[in-house]
């Protein structure tokens, strides 16, 4: 049972939250590796140790900076992604505990996902390379398409719960999860998560057709941070969906925190599994879809939610 007044944790809890997020990100990496190995008909066992090997490899590799690069901005952008993911989960209650019980947690999450705009563009801009920069611009183009629908998608649960505090939103789903009567908002939210994590069909800013895009010039620990940031953002997006749409910690038998983790892992797994199935969304096509299809759809969803809430009184 979710507690309407969650307990704010101390420094130890902050570290624990960071640890849980990184563990979730690591689980996503392993799952992705296992799925890739299975698709290629290889034994899945090798994929489990793969993230460790890759991490060690990148830590051993030397950093490099192309000529005329803006190293400061480049590394700020690369290092910032993990930080933003951590700041996102800061408002997600884990059962009774939460890192920061902001009364505007929903808006906070939104502000953090906008910070990804800045960071990805900086990663693209920093190295002074054509393909990186095209990747950075691609992300902004995608962002203009997905951000407003995403924003209005998380408005729906907030309206449904009549609160911007994440714990209140979770508590308002006693009996009926928001995903059931806000399916459009949930789907659009998931698309937004895929997009700000540079994942699956929305991975065009680092697409093969631009030679790796924002990743093109990254090596060593810089590359590790950006890749870790992507997985952490995906995990944070999945974690935030739990109190918003999936009933927070409610569920039988298990305690609230366990249910939050179980639901997060399930959604994260679904998002990871989506990765290889769909071709890329070309950014020039995304804009019109975002504004002509998704935005009106979520607005209608918001209207429906508002009417239901008003009718209930």
């Amino acid at each position, binding site marked *: 049972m979710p507690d309407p007044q969650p307990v704010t944790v101390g420094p130890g809890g902050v570290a624990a939250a960071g640890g849980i997020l990184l563990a979730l990100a690591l689980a996503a990496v392993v799952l992705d590796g296992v799925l890739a190995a299975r698709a290629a008909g290889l034994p899945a066992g090798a994929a489990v140790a793969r993230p*460790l090997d890759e991490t060690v490899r990148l830590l051993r*590799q030397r950093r490099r900076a192309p000529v005329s690069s803006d190293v400061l901005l480049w590394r700020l952008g690369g290092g910032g992604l993990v930080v933003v993911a951590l700041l996102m989960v800061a408002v997600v209650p884990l059962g009774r505990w939460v890192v920061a019980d902001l009364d505007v947690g929903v808006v906070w999450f939104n502000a953090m996902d906008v910070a990804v705009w800045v960071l990805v563009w900086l990663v693209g801009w920093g190295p002074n390379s054509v393909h990186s920069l095209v990747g950075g611009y691609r992300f902004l183009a995608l962002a203009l398409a997905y951000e407003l629908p995403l924003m209005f998608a998380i408005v729906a649960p907030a309206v449904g719960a009549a609160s911007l505090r994440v714990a209140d939103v979770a508590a308002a789903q006693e009996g009926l999860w928001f995903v059931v009567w806000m399916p459009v908002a949930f789907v659009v939210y998931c698309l937004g998560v895929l997009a700000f994590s540079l994942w699956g069909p929305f991975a065009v800013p680092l697409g093969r057709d631009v030679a790796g895009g924002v990743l093109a010039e990254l090596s060593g620990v810089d590359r590790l941070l950006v890749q870790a940031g992507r997985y952490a953002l995906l995990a944070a997006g999945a974690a935030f969906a739990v109190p918003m749409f999936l009933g927070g910690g409610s569920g039988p038998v298990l305690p609230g925190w366990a249910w939050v983790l179980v639901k997060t892992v399930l959604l994260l797994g679904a998002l990871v599994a989506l990765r290889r199935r769909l071709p890329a969304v070309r950014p020039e096509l995304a804009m019109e879809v975002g504004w002509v299809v998704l935005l009106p759809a979520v607005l209608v969803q918001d209207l429906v939610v508002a009417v239901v809430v008003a009718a209930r009184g």
Partner: protein
Amino acid sequence: MGLRRWVVGRAVRAARVLVVECPGARPARMAAEQAVAARGWRIAQTPASADVLLVVGEVRGGLDEVVDRLWEALPGPRARADVRTEGDAAAALARAAAVLVDGRGQRADAEQRDAAGAGPGDDTGGHDHDDTGGHDHDDMDMAPDGIPLAEGAEQDRDGLEMDALPVRLGPVLPDWPAGLVIDVVLHGDLVVTAAAAAVGGPEHDPVSEPLPEDTATVAAARCDDVAAVLALAGWEEGARAARSARDVLLARRGDDARATLVDLRHRVEHSRWLRWSLAGTGTVTPERARDLGLAEDVVGDCRDRLLVLITRAEAAARRYGASGLDAPVPDVPAVPLTAVGPLLEGCDLGAARLVVASLGSDLVPDPVPQREAAGA
């Protein structure tokens, strides 16, 4: 000491390989990619992420400079391997692994690079920056570190008359025909002018030399073309299927490959998402094809040409499967190199890459040698 060895062992187990394919070395490259996968290593997309530089084929005319630049762009620890024929790859990669594991040698390499002032930080990104030398600015201040700033363009689709940036695409990019370079002028990510040329091939020879008369290898190469388009379209599952058909053909199991290709064709035809994402990219009208001297089957958009490529791969695989012998594969019409540039104009960078891949790899240069344009 034990810890260091553990770290190095782990790191080398996940090594990434940047493959440089010289013109004419396609069979060797496909075999090398298989060898890379067999070691549990992966293919790198860019020099920045690579540990091993694997040069496949004979380095000729102009390509040696490119390879040197790429070698400098590898961050290190790094190893270089050269492969000439299909059978060599596994041994070369084993040697490269030994070089990567050798901590003392890598430290010496790093120190030497630092001392020479050419550490991993001082490359020019290899293929990313043009250095055609054609940009003599009056004011050298406008070219910090020797890289000219983007300059205003006369004609701009946005009407904003800004940012014309000359860039050379190739000759080493993921899923890119060997030895092809395209000098483009970009407005942002929009290709305004493009001129294709060939480097690294012997004079008057095609970019991709005629494939060997071995039916299975030809069919595998056709599958490789399909995989390139699908990979560039961002559809990993489809690209993987095409590559597995390729590998099956290289292992001389034609029937399995045909089944995979038939299935892939079905999925490509029925994927609404792929239709949506590729429709209208790089459309060629019949008139335009005639003007550029292209065959009928390039007419349409990238998706149509992808289906043509799949059909060709299927036909080649069927020919191999049916005869079980090395029966000749039907010829496909070659694409003249001069026609490539005009097709890219007006596309954005990603679409341009798709168009190049969708033409297949049977590109032939103009009868007139293009050596000057190649800037070799």
